[in-house]
């Protein structure tokens, strides 16, 4: 693996970039692995990377039905923040935000983590109460998040309309300055390159059709489009299709799969300095390094595996953007797309062991799992290696839906992403 740095870039430029090597090889499956990870999204690739790097397990295959990073990792709007309400979530997401800070250096791949800050706007008395609750909870947990007045919101992000007579006037906002965005593809590629360099096989275009179990019930391996692959342990991170994959092992997951759409505008010069989310009005926005406004909102209101999405949601999302940022009404939408998100009843993920021995799952990220990629991959690797959860993911069990020990971020704030 050629190290990435300015010197090597220059050196290679001199030789016409002829000598760069593959970032990861096109691996074909071996007959047996210590760990098979289903799903080469950020979470799956990240878990492989940390297994290899921190737990010395390198006989790993990451298998994807398509191209690595082609799922939600490559479709999301890359909002990263950790100002969640509950202690459990704050710990998980803040662990992730900690890892984001140094991820480019860790992976020797510029993932362009941009600390641009995330501002969540309050438009009703109820929003104000709820956001202040977050601010207080975060403060006592040592997580950065502070309250801004409408004028301070406007100063932080000038395109915001704070007119008092707006349909839903801005009554203030909660700002997390450590929050931001990153380049999604680079995250998948960086982990893939790092994992491959440590011996991990990344097998693309090979759907896992079933998880096979031994007579005793424990995991035996996976059936794939390229035949059976034996595995001591199987870990599933197949966003959008987790419930289908896990069902083949006889494990039912409490997931509903729903399309989530996003869109970008045509690129313009810098105009939007941070991430702004407005849940009451239903839209959020940031500007990419390329100059496009990156926009999204909530899921379509129906369960579906179709990534097409519908028109009404887009109309509403853009109306919301024009409501909060009226100067953008003459901008143009360049492209929109959708992804399938797996949603749990409490909108928090499931990361851990399953009723099947040696079968692990990391799922239920819904509309907001990109931000968790490094943190969750890191603790998932720990769980797989040690066959017990890391303290950070210990509360995120599958059992909690049976016991009722939910981590209900949705109920707490109806905040997505």
């Amino acid at each position: 693996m050629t190290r990435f740095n300015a010197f090597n870039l220059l050196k290679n430029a001199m030789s016409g970039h002829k000598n760069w090597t593959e970032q990861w090889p096109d691996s074909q499956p071996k007959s047996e692995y210590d760990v098979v990870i289903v799903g080469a999204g950020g979470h799956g690739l990240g878990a492989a990377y940390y297994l290899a790097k921190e737990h010395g397990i390198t006989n790993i295959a990451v298998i994807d039905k398509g191209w690595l990073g082609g799922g939600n990792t490559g479709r999301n709007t890359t909002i990263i923040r950790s100002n969640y309400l509950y202690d459990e979530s704050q710990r998980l997401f803040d662990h992730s935000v900690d890892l984001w800070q140094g991820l480019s250096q860790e992976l020797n791949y510029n993932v362009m983590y941009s600390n641009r800050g995330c501002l969540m706007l309050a438009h009703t008395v109820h929003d104000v109460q709820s956001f202040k609750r977050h601010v207080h909870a975060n403060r006592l947990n040592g997580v950065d998040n502070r309250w801004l007045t409408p004028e301070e919101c406007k100063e932080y992000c000038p395109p915001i309309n704070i007119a008092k007579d707006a349909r839903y006037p801005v009554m203030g906002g909660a700002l997390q300055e450590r929050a931001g965005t990153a380049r999604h593809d680079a995250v998948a590629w960086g982990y893939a390159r790092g994992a491959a360099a440590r011996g991990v096989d990344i097998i693309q275009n090979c759907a896992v059709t079933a998880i096979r179990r031994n007579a005793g019930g424990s995991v035996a391996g996976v059936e794939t489009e390229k035949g059976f692959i034996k595995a001591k342990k199987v870990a599933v991170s197949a966003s959008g299709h987790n419930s289908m994959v896990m069902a083949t092992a006889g494990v039912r997951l409490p997931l509903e799969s729903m399309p989530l759409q996003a869109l970008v505008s045509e690129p313009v010069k810098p105009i939007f300095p941070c991430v702004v989310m407005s849940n009451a009005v239903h839209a959020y926005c940031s500007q990419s390094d390329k100059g496009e406004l990156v926009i999204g909102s909530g899921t379509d209101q129906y369960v579906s595996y179709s990534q097409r999405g519908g028109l009404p949601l887009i109309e509403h999302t853009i109306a919301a953007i024009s409501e909060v940022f009226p100067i953008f009404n003459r901008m143009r939408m360049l492209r929109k797309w959708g992804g399938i998100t797996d949603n749990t009843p409490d909108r928090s993920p499931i990361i851990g062991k399953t009723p099947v021995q040696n079968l692990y799952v990391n799922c239920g990220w819904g509309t907001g799992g990109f931000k968790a990629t490094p943190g969750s991959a890191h603790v998932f690797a720990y769980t797989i290696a040690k066959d017990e959860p890391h303290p950070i993911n210990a509360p995120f069990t599958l059992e909690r839906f049976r016991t009722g020990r939910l981590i209900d971020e949705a109920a707490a704030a109806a905040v997505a992403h």
Partner: protein
Amino acid sequence: MSQYRVSGRGRVDTSRAVTFTFDGKSYRGVQGDTVASALLANGVHLMGRSFKYHRPRGAIAAGSEEPNALIGTRRGAGRFEPNTRATVQEIWDGLETSSQNKFPSLKFDVGAVNDAAYMLFSAGFYYKTFMWPRSFWDKVYEPFIRAAAGLGVSPTEEDPDHYASRNLHCDVLIVGAGPTGLAAARAAAVEGLRVVLVDENAEAGGTLLSEPQARIDGKPAWDWLAAELEALKALGVKVMTRTTAIAYYHQNLIGLVEKLTDHLPKLPADTPRERLWRVRAKQVVLAQGALEKPLVFHGNDRPGVMLAGSAQTFLNRYGVLVGKRPVILTSHDAAWYAAFDLQDAGAQVQAIVDTRADVDALLLNEARARGIAVKLSHTATATSGRLRVSSLRINPVAGGTVGSGQEIRCDAVLMSGGWTPSLHLFSHTKGSLTWDDDRTTFLPNNTPEDCVIAGASRGLWGIEAALADGAEKGRAVVEALGKTGAQVAYAVEADRPGTGVSHKELPTDLSAGKAKAFVDFQNDVTAKDLRLAVREGMRSIEHVKRYTTNGMATDQGKMSNINGLNIASDALGKKQPQVGLTTFRPPYTPTSFGAFAGYHRGEHFEVTRKTDIDSWAEAKNAVFEPVGQWRRARYFPKPGEDMDAAVRRECAATRASVGIFDASTLGKIEVVGPDAVEFMNRMYTNPWTKLAPGRCRYGLLLGDDGYIRDDGVIGRMSEDRFHVTTTTGGAARVLNMMEDYLQTEWPDLNVWLTSTTEQWSTVALNGPDAAKLLAPFVEGVELTEETFPHMSCVECTVAGMPARLFRVSFTGEIGFEVNVPAHLGRKLWETLWDAGQQYGITAYGTETMHVLRAEKGYIIVGQDTDGTVTPYDCGMGWAVGKKKPDFVGMRGLARPDLQAKNRKQLVGLLTEDGSKLEEGAQIVFDPKQAIPMTMVGHVTSSYDIGTTDQPIALALVAGGHEKMGETVYIPMPDRTIAAKITSTVFVDPDNTRLKI
């Protein structure tokens, strides 16, 4: 006339001059010009700068696929938009346009130093560097990259225009009004079907507009077109121009955007700028045609190098010669006709250079007859010229070897790499594609929608083939709709179908790495970048695209996708379909936000629901707050009062005499039917069987997880009829939930649900004088403790109005809610208001309502509960029917964690220092801990403006019910507040005040 305008050519009106500006300089065009055609008529090719290298660029195409000629367009204050395609924007007197992404000027742009450092800025270079030192990314590198990126500048003012939307149903929607679409429209229209024919261009006709030489059914193409359009309109076809089909959704829902004013010199009053049409069509015919491909060679991006077909369009449609000494560079027959057309219009064609060895003898003969030099089996290896092409370097290719080059002086290079079908909308349907090796292109296969694709968009070239296929597919659609269609044939003369070959980048004699052969022009992606991506392990076209940004420019790959795919597959040594085609994503062309937002802006962003009494509150200068879509009076300040003062007065008056409150926004659902009581038993936690008609009860609704979702007083009006009330914000949610259960879980129950929120106006009277005030108006029931006790309901007459009267209280005082037909709300209110003057009646708003209920310990769902609170948590176990076999949430509620001891429970809090707590503040047991602290709950409600002598608060505290009298702490940023846990009821714990 301008230097490059050809008289007698084109469809523009040369008698009507139009003046506009570009970068401050005034230019003259003619009526019917686009900005691009008008600039070209003035000999201006330089129209923009590219994204990364800031290379000078001109228009390469003549239509909406243009990647280079992007400009800012302005019409006075507030009306500016960046990134407008100069090839689409029509000119009008006074239009101001400007170039983009340049500093200080378009001709001299310092950003072009990037071009010199080209070797460094290879594909994905930014993933490999800018990582040291770590803190520099945010402060130095990223701001630098951002400033360099982006194309135009964002508008900075609010948009003064308005936008509209409409729904349309039709039998057949046809996208594209070229010969294919026209023939399909006729086939459907003659059968009496409702047909809509749309085209993004300013006029219908498609290729016919660029091919006046053709003759159809004996008539010149343009005469035929005019007659045909008349005929179609006479048949009732709705022909919509400047209308783009932007996206194809499930079940034949197509979004169209119609541009109504961008081309007009004067804005008509009351006309929206754009209109979004949601078309539901029984059948769709896609006749979007094909897009010409550029050739990929070193210097193919210099201003003056453009698509041959586009040059033909500029000539035949706009009467503009893009060059006087053009050279043709092609791998397809089509470009030969461009040479002939331009020569006929007075150009001196320098040569026709064809990459192929074999070319149709007819073309060769004609070129020879015209005296045009022909170079077969040649490649192009370079262009030169600073801001405009001045020569093309060509080299013979024999047996794979590139021979020595020769310069051809020229002022334009017209290139053609053949055509690729426009499959965009077809792909939106998730239609499958097949690879056609002969034509080196993808062709449409199957689609799940009721849709056919015809003509050039399925790879059929030429007008005759288009007409024939349009007619045939039109007939197929007619038959799919149950009619029999007729066979129609068109006779076409002087057609120019042609064939060609497809290329990856053209062979070159330049040393590898030197060539800047552009594939994605706007994003500056070269063939070399694509090969580098493959070398680095990018094996799918999705990876190649994302790594290089090929196809991600504002033309969304219309120019670059197939060339990119050909090069990537060559680099991989695989067939194109194995490498894949990236998904075409909506919209077809960039679409203004305004078109999507439509009417939903400003005040109309969302409906503002107002009660019948709202106008009274407004007249009394109430201050309002949004609650869901409703606006509700928050308080009624007297002159000089702030909110606190007003609320204090309202609270005191209500407890002292009588307060009047508009409760009309409460959700109301009528639950009716033989099984109504069973349905209520299953939905709500409470038992309903024994509730007698004429009585009401506080109902609790849980989610299936066992947590409180909603609440409200529910009256049993008769055996089989319940008047259910919900929270204001929860009404729709509750009705949805009820319908969901009724339709999917209990379809056997005989129950009807009707939302009656807007059928009733509800006036609440609360206070010791409430009964006295109301009694004289009520007919049908006496308001005494015996005849109408607390929690009664009845249908009666109030002040002569039919009413449903409830005796309920959300304040702890004697209370009534009078429901009358919605339109009588204000009348009732005013009647009671007038009569109430003798008691000093006081109107109060939501804020007072919140305070009074908190003093009495009544919860507000969503404020004191948050979706994690059980009935037991807030001390309402009494509302759960213990003997019921089932209700929604029963199993959820039985889970161990919901039964656990130390759950957060609702309690009252009184601060030790008498200060008011902040809602949302977190609670700890041990104030001395270090951060992160162990938090045990939070303050849910807090008031210091009510009728208690000290501030009160409600809070959720772990194990709170067992901790009465204990002290907890609320650490604020500046200090820590101590508070004592109390009961949630601060006023009248024995309910004595509820008695009349």
